[in-house]
């Protein structure tokens, strides 16, 4: 579904009206819209999207809970995480 297609405008209008004038939970509405939008390319893609979301959400919670080492190996690989500290950031390229 392209931003330039008429079906997109129609669904967008319905979503915006629902967000503004109904008491339906907004986050759930926008999430449903996201799945419809992504599923329009290929419904099977939604499974992958949900898998990525669930993996990231629960790995982060477990990481924050303390079992860092094992999970990190699963979710990221060690290279991203070695020498990261906000105090040593440089602000630009090159």
């Amino acid at each position, binding site marked *: 579904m392209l931003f330039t297609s008429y079906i997109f405008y129609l669904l967008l209008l319905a979503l915006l009206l629902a967000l503004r004038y109904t008491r339906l939970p*907004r986050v759930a509405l926008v999430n449903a819209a996201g799945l419809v939008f992504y599923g329009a390319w*290929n419904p099977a893609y939604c499974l992958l*999207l949900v898998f990525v979301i669930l993996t*990231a959400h629960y790995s*982060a919670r477990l990481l924050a809970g303390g079992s860092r080492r094992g999970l990190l190996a699963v979710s990221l690989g060690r290279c*991203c995480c070695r020498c990261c500290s906000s105090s*040593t950031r440089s602000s630009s*390229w090159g």
Partner: protein
Amino acid sequence: MFFKYQEFLLGVIGDLASLWGPRPAFSALEVVLPVGISFYSFQALSYVVDVYRGELAPCRRLSQFFLYISFFPQLIAGPIERAGHILPQVERLARRQRLPVDLLPACDLFLRGLVKKAVFADSFARYVDLVFTRLDEVSFPCILAATGFFTLQIYCDFSGYTDMARGLARAMGVELSINFDYPYLARNIAQFWRRWHVTLSTWFRDYVYIPLGGSRRGEARTYLNLMLTMLLCGLWHGAAYTFVIWGAYHGLLLAVHRFYALRLARRLPLPRLLCGALTLGAVSLGWFVFRARELSDLVLFVHKALDWREGLRLGAATSQWFLALVFVAWQGLEALWWKRRWSLVELAGWRRAAFACAVGLFLFLFKPASDVVFIYFQF
């Protein structure tokens, strides 16, 4: 990773093996690459790293995290948002009684993006596609013209998408990051990467370049880090040799610029205009590599350059040249003279109505009949 790179990796292994003997017959799995996978997996990755580093508290509500990743305006082609920027806005969206009612800034951004994409990018695409599919037949000046048009097309296409995404998000009360800041007016390649696809370049800076050591481990290591980061950036764009070369080319440009800035700039200062022209020329040359389908296209480019009179002369249509001029004038005037974006918001009364009508007329007159898919959807 698997979806995107398995075929390319098998190809590389096959190519390497063929150097020593017969090429092994690997068969890659037939998978269709899910659209936007590189964008949302990067968002998910940055969230997990931020939580691991202790820079971000994990999101407690799955529904809100779901929205952060699957927010449809930016799901397919970015901007690649950080959780720290979006999650507080999602929480406000969930709590707020009423959404903000001022839709004008949202419409303005969306319309701006629509014009960039539907009028400019799609018109340029027709000439670019024509030349790049007949690269072996056309003459070198045609290739140069098509590369120039592609330079404009990719900017209009991608920044147009970003503007539309930002407009849509704003209509729902969410502010997305700015992704483009007149990148073709950059005076050097480092500045270009601070203005082009800002959310991707800052992602690579924060999660690859700095963890590799950034510029803190000596000069040689800095050049190596730049090369590695840009190689990965090239690979992020696509699993093909052309993207690897494109990444390496930009790594080399960044390294050369750094060397010049540290060692030569004081003794050998260049005029600003020349710096801007050199940067734009180098970036445009890079876009040829980016647009090329195969490595043989790059060889063809060199052959055609050496024999530049040979080949078919396919000219762009007058309307395409006209649109290119209009676009350059629009962006130039906005950035250099007006110093702010032309928008519906700043106009009032009949001026606003007239501006909206003019944009509508422009869309009606110049929008090609068929829609072209956004270039960055393939990544």
